[in-house]
């Protein structure tokens, strides 16, 4: 199992930033990783004259259960993307999700809008609005304030450097 990387970001008196990182064993519960980061943050900070501005842990996910293409198509380009905008219908908070290398064959005819009737588009909308339920637990997309995304309001093709 791959190790988990813990990242500590520091900023000095001139505003320069640098990231200190080390790895910890894989397979830990997220709650244990969170508790570890809280303890380790003080220990690492006590060694540094800079300000600790953030700490995070990166856990590699296993996508081997997914059926994914292994070769990019002739027309794929990271500049071409689909900007998906969703919101929480009650709180009115929005979230954005961009898909690099979007294939515009999924657009409605003569439009830069994704075709809502397209099966693949509908599948993506369902996952983003309803999440995925596994063993009684539903994992859902949320806004930066933690409100669930329950309404996809826009899906438009864009061209932008990532």
């Amino acid at each position: 199992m791959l190790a988990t990387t813990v990242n500590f970001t520091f900023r000095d008196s001139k505003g320069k930033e640098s990231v200190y990182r080390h790895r910890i064993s894989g397979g830990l519960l997220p709650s244990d990783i969170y508790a570890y980061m809280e303890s380790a943050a003080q220990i690492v900070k006590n060694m540094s004259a800079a300000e600790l501005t953030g700490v995070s842990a990166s856990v590699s996910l296993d996508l081997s259960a997914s059926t994914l293409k292994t070769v990019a198509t002739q027309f794929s380009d990271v500049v071409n993307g689909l900007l998906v905008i969703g919101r929480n219908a009650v709180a009115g908070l929005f979230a954005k999700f961009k898909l690099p290398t979007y294939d515009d064959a999924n657009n409605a005819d003569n439009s830069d809008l994704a075709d809502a009737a397209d099966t693949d588009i509908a599948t993506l909308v369902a996952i983003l609005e309803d999440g995925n339920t596994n063993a009684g637990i539903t994992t859902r997309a949320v806004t930066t304030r933690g409100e669930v995304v329950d309404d996809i309001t826009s899906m438009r093709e864009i061209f932008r450097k990532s």
Partner: protein
Amino acid sequence: MSAQNYIVYEYEDRMQRRATNQLNVKTFVAADGEEFPPTMPHINAFASVLAEAVDGLIGGIIRRATYVIVGDISGVTGNVASDSADVEEIGAFQFRTLDGLKVQANVPAIIETLVTNETGNINQAATAVAAYLAMMEDGIDLGGTLVRATDVGGDYLDATVYARERSRNSGKRRQY
């Protein structure tokens, strides 16, 4: 938790150019919608289903996915930069794993008083340094769960090879 955890996907197009996107996620009890602490099987299942849905809409390939857990530093004391703080002045540590592999760790803006005069060596007996070395070599006990530092392959760190002050460009790198 202080901020939302998120999934980062990395993509690659036909020219091997790469891009990433990210999505904040949380877990809930399906029956009543109550928030539930995240577990890796649930996060992984969601990431896999979403990856498959996205794959049908893109021309590029999905190279990998990472779950990022955002920690809380609000309880860290003394967390200000001193006037002389410089992230290019690093504490360079080298550790050895149980299998004898070397692992490097660089602490930015190492506090000058932790460095022994004229030698450039970091005083391993200083309280802050000893606590750091204990964390790296022995781990942190979370009340029954011992979390230990490892190399990239998951081999535990076991001993300190050296601890020295060095200078280098900060060169901020990828953080996920």
